[in-house]
């Protein structure tokens, strides 16, 4: 029997398999190149880049929670120019689609980073992060309101011809409405979910565990929430969904794929095990082989709902 075909197409870019590393947990790939062969990944999404450098939030920036963690890194990055000068050329040595995650506080900032990134080499697609809960102005607002989200995406669409992925925030009442709005505005794929707003308290010091009080919850704890949103959105829109949230094993990834995700991204799990993206790729292949499927697309959205 021949090996199953894992290739997928997301927003017009071809990935050799559906396993992507999520934004913010994998840096720009460099640090993990010692642990895994980056050539094996379906794609890499960079830590979110803003046009200007940003210093991020004060520490403590993270905290462990039951089956999850909170973070409030706050979009620390060296800015688009430094990224293009130092990181993109390094990534070019790999046979690996690079998806650049972009952020900003207002439409103008998003457009500037979009234009800048669109004219440099080695970028396969843009992922618009309208959902980072850690930026006080902008980020959160865009992700919570369908109209604001759509306006932003429409504007970014005019600034670039790169494939456009939009990453949504789960901190909303109606995720489907937001997804539909950004697809109408030009999104060619949807990533979801970003982190869920959460908090933790140290009862001994009587202080919040994160200096910024509130942060984003990620990891296996949020998997059921992410899966539900992916399922709801995948049914409602015509572009691919990249499923994200608590994926730590091939079984987790397959849950998302069966629920309708055309690809998945692995975030927090790389902290537990840097090998996890590779193990997930291998596990998906094994599952397809064992169950007699020729290709991954046979199981995308193949969830069976009884009557």
């Amino acid at each position, binding site marked *: 029997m021949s090996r199953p075909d894992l290739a997928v197409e997301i927003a017009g870019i071809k990935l050799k398999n559906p396993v992507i590393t999520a934004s913010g947990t994998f840096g720009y790939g*460099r*640090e993990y190149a010692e642990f895994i062969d980056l050539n094996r990944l379906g794609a890499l999404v960079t830590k979110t880049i803003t046009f200007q450098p940003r210093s991020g939030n004060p*520490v403590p*920036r993270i905290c462990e929670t039951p089956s999850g963690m909170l973070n409030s890194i706050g979009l620390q990055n060296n800015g688009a120019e430094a990224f293009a000068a130092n990181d993109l050329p390094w990534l070019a040595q790999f046979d690996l689609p690079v998806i650049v995650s972009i952020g900003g506080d207002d439409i103008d900032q998003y457009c500037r980073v979009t234009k800048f990134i669109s004219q440099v080499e080695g970028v396969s697609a843009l992922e618009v992060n309208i959902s980072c809960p850690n930026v006080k102005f902008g980020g959160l607002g865009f992700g919570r309101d369908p109209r604001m989200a759509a306006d932003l995406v429409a504007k970014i669409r005019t600034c670039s011809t790169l494939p456009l992925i939009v990453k949504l925030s789960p901190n909303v009442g109606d995720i489907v409405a937001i997804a539909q709005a950004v697809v109408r505005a030009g999104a060619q794929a949807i990533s979801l979910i970003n982190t869920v707003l959460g908090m933790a308290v140290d009862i001994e010091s009587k202080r919040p565990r994160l200096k910024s009080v509130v942060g984003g919850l990620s990891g296996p704890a949020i998997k059921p929430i992410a899966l539900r949103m992916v399922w709801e959105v995948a049914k409602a829109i015509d572009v691919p969904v990249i499923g994200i949230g608590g994926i730590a094993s091939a079984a987790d990834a397959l849950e998302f794929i069966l629920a309708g995700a055309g690809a998945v991204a692995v975030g927090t799990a790389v902290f537990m095990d840097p090998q996890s993206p590779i193990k997930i790729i291998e596990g998906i292949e094994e599952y397809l082989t064992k169950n007699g499927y020729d290709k991954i697309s046979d199981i995308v959205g193949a969830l069976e709902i009884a009557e």
Partner: protein
Amino acid sequence: MQVKATVLQKDEVAPQVHKIRFFAPRIAKSAQPGQFVHIKCGEEQNYILRRPFSIHQANSSDSIEILFKVVGRGTSWLAKLKVKDSVDIIGPLGNGFSLKSRPGKIMLVAGGMGIAPLIFLADKLAKEHTKTYTVIGAANKELLLDYMNLKRLTRKITAATEDGSQGVKGLITDILPAAITEDHPDVIFACGPFSMLREVAFIARREDVDCQVALEELMACGVGACLACVVKTKTGFKRVCADGPVFDSREIEW
């Protein structure tokens, strides 16, 4: 690198303080004093974050040691490990103490568990016949860890305990200035709680001695990718895991 390391030995060296020796030849071979390992605790996915520990010893060719205090879930789990258990370890990580300028006299300053990385360093320095002096502090005599090792490895030990059960009664920073005056170190290598290190840095500057500090901060990736573990420096946030954990004390925005 990421390895499965087998527990070779485990001892409770003081109340709630454990020493574990792991079979990890690849890590042992490249480890430098001041570097650390990032250890996966627990089975399955109970612990989302690995736990960082200084490399306490790596001089035998095949094994590394960690020395740790039980403070929470992860260290409790580690404390229950048994010989032959296998543990997922990433390391060696970070930048160790910088010995580039070949200093003549070195002073090691260890507060509490801060002794952990300094034994490996003292051992290396002893092998190179560098003159080292140690200033250590702890809550009490029992927690003056590795005292016998230090005796063997360094020329002189000055100790302070909070309860006065050994050495001077007081804090390590109470006895440091006198020790500096007496032993004239060219450089101080310090490890311990943040507030102590700040004080040590201040004293070092006052006495005009070079000083390197090994910092701690909450870590997720441990390899420099996630930006969780930053410390404010004169040139902006730096990552404790990848740009440190050892920093020149003048670099830090205390």
